[in-house]
């Protein structure tokens, strides 16, 4: 903590700020002379009064820093015609660039289908669909062959031509016993004529 001035020093301090040596009353001058000489008072007074003019010629114009503040950009306004011109220029540039961009795309697509990124995935899919169709055709052909095999008559048969004998009617109806008589027996005809001659 710095010490404060005592009463006499505080008085002299006030006089130094406000009055020249010649403006002081003799009583005041006597009080000053208790602390310092008249020359010292005059020099101290001069130090105070000259201070304000010492740097008077060294005040250049300063410019407010604008680009460094984020606010400067947000607050800036431009004339309406500039805004309209900017929008029109953007549209023109967009229209000028857009068709050439699409043309470039079509030129590049066929040669780089496999190598490039996801932009060309659509083309890869198209190729895949084509492959699937081929497979289907193969399957269809196979099926056709199978169908032909099924539909066409067999070339070789186990029993070809007419049977060498009349098949015996072995249905239950014919096997029904009509009686014990030999005449009722159908199988008699298979027997030698000797049997027939008996009857």
């Amino acid at each position, binding site marked *: *903590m*710095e*010490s*404060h*001035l005592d009463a006499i*020093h*505080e008085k*002299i*301090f006030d006089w*130094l700020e406000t009055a*020249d040596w010649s403006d002081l009353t003799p009583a005041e001058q006597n009080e000053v002379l208790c602390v310092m000489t008249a*020359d*010292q008072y*005059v*020099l*101290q007074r*001069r*130090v*105070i009064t*000259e*201070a*304000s003019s*010492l*740097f008077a010629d*060294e*005040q*250049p*114009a*300063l410019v*407010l*820093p604008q680009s*460094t*503040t984020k*606010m*400067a950009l*947000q*607050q*800036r306004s431009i004339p309406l015609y500039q805004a309209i011109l900017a929008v029109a220029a953007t549209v023109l540039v967009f229209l000028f660039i857009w068709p050439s961009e699409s043309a470039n795309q079509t030129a590049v697509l066929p040669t780089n289908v496999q190598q490039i990124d996801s932009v060309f995935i659509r083309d890869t899919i198209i190729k895949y669909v084509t492959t699937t169709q081929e497979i289907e055709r193969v399957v269809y052909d196979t099926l056709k062959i199978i169908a032909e095999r099924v539909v066409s008559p067999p070339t070789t048969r186990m029993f070809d031509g007419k049977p060498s004998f009349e098949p015996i009617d072995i249905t239950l109806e014919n096997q029904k016993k009509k009686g014990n008589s030999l005449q009722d027996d159908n199988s008699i005809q298979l027997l030698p004529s000797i049997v027939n001659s008996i009857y």
Partner: protein
Amino acid sequence: MLCSDEELMVEIIVHHSHPALALLHERYSGKLYGYFLKMMNDREKASDFVQDIFLKIMEKKHLFDPERKFQAWIFTIASNMCKTAFRSPQFVALSSEEIDQKSHGHLSENLHEKERFKILYKRSLNQLEMHHKTTFILRYMENFSLNDIAEITEVSVGTVKSRLFYATQKMTKLLHEYDPRQEINLFKIN
């Protein structure tokens, strides 16, 4: 409409108003440049400090108390910047000879008496301790009231008076040491 500094500051805090900042810059850039120049004895540094202080205002605007005087607040920041610069190892205080060179070249015998006094004055001002120099410049060069200086330097008014008295006394002593003719010439000038 003429707004007070404090109103402009509120405008900056609430609406981030760039025109308000520009107006404050217009009002204070010269004063601050002068203050920094006197404190640092370096035009470039003074100019940089002015730029920096307005950026600081934008960064620290929320710390401003609308009840307080803006001028006292901004000079408190300025004083603290100088204090920090003096403490910095990068800061090299100019020697008396360098000050002479920068301002008016060598101190020749033939130099006009008033010019000579100016050079010696700057040299002795540069020899003051930091707190004395700050108080002296604020009072006698920037014309602040004792109460404002007390607020800026965060000491009592009594301490401000004491600092001023001893700073002036030391300056006088240094001036006399540099050129004993000063006292003799005083009566011629005045």
